[in-house]
């Protein structure tokens, strides 16, 4: 399937994201306990389980339908801050892809559209210690690698690395958005749970969308 991803691959991506979140649920909730309200792992896990079940129940016909269905399911099942934000991310991606296989450039554009949706909904800026701090660098890395003519596989690896670095970079940040912002200075020194989930999202992409790359 060369350098594009189809419905099967995207389905695998969502499943793998679900698997990783389930595996890390306790860690995600623990991070949220430190600077939030101890539900992020449970929230994402609940939503992704529902999304995976929905994909199995009514398999969407094309990439746009799939991403839309995942986004809608997350919005309907997650709640909290991450429901609308992760839901919007997938919905906006759906709007940026078509009914055909998604090629590398389209995938990069779609992820950035997702980021823009998250920014529009949540009004966070880079450095506010949110999922944006992992998603932003991931989009930048994708774009750079695309511009340099790299493969989707290579681009995703770079993006995942950037997401993990962005996640790690949230540790020293002072939170300015979300629940962690209530802590002021005390938010410093803790890793943002939402950014941690975003790094898992990109990790899942490497394994499932990178093809043979």
């Amino acid at each position: 399937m060369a350098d594009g991803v189809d419905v099967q691959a995207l389905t695998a991506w969502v499943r793998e994201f679900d698997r990783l979140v389930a595996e890390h649920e306790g860690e995600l909730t623990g991070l949220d306990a430190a600077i939030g309200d101890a539900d992020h792992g449970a929230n994402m896990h609940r939503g992704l389980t529902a999304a995976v079940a929905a994909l199995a129940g009514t398999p969407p016909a094309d990439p746009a339908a799939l991403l839309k269905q995942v986004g809608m399911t997350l919005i309907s099942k997650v709640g909290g801050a991450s429901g609308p934000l992760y839901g919007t991310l997938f919905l906006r991606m759906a709007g940026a892809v078509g009914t055909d296989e998604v090629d590398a450039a389209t995938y990069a554009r779609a992820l950035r559209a997702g980021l823009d949706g998250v920014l529009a909904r949540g009004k966070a800026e880079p450095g506010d210690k949110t999922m944006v701090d992992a998603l932003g660098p991931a989009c930048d890395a994708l774009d750079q690698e695309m511009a340099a003519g790299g493969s989707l596989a290579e681009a995703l690896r770079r993006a995942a690395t950037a997401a993990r670095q962005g996640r790690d970079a949230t540790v020293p940040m002072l939170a300015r958005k979300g629940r962690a912002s209530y802590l002021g200075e005390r938010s410093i020194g803790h890793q943002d749970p939402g950014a941690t989930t975003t790094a898992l999202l990109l990790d899942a992409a490497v394994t499932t969308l990178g093809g043979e790359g």
Partner: protein
Amino acid sequence: MKKLINDPADVVSDALRGMAAAHPELRVDHENRVVFRGDAPVQGKVGLVSGGGSGHEPMHGGFVGPGMLDAACAGEVFTSPVPDQMVAATKGVDGGAGVLHIVKNYTGDVLNFEMAAEMVAAESGTEVVSVVTDDDVAVQDSLYTAGRRGVGVTVLLEKIVGAAAEQGRPLSGVADLARKVNAQGRSMGMALTSCTVPAAGRPTFDLSDDEMEIGVGIHGEPGRRRVPLAPAREIAEMLLEPVLGDLDFTGSDGALVFVNGLGGTPLLELYLLFADVTAVLEKAGVRIARSLVGSYMTSLDMAGCSVTLLKVDDDLVRLWDAPVRTPGLRWGT
């Protein structure tokens, strides 16, 4: 974790079954997890919808009934409900006079209610206005935070605005009143212990036996500072000092004073703290027009309390005194 529960994943739906059984005068939509007034929608009356994460009982489901809310959406524990629930609630209470969404200022609640309002606007002709409560002085309302949290004032607002809607005031008037109540109230909370989220299975934060957390939220969010355990009279001062510093409550109309328990604190201690609160207020020249002491906005099993002051005028006092018939607040005819 020691709780009267079955599977932690079922806590909210199990509790809603209990609520429905205990309060036949309410109608519970279990699929959407919405608690409705039995007679909703009330034709010609502005519909009041609130909701939020569960774990704060009696808020919000316990405030559904004549003179208060028309519907309340129950999210997962400490997790904002989702837009679908809010849409179902909004449709179910629309009696033709529009619907007010009462939203506590948390990112999740605000975003989900926002999406719900967008969905209602896209689908139907129902007019929806949202009012956000943000009375928690523990949080600075600045560019550097998500803004003050909505806490104790929400309960008082739901009662007062509920009375106004019951009297037939139009949506714009009800919304203005809600904004006024929010603007005139301030709160501050503290925790003696953490709560334990059922799905997490252990306390959200650790506090040693001689410490307490000042400025804590109602979701187990740690507060702004941790200080040595102190007597109730000093706690009353610590909570009131920032409240009184943020808004002038010394007007001749006086204040509605609300001492709220967080779920693990018995009434005995709340009355005791209220006595100390009255002493601080007397010294500060604040007249107590009305009071409310009890556990109305809880944080699961957290031991601790919050204090809310609301500036009231004659209109607000009349609306506060007006009849209300809900599981959580009930008085008058």
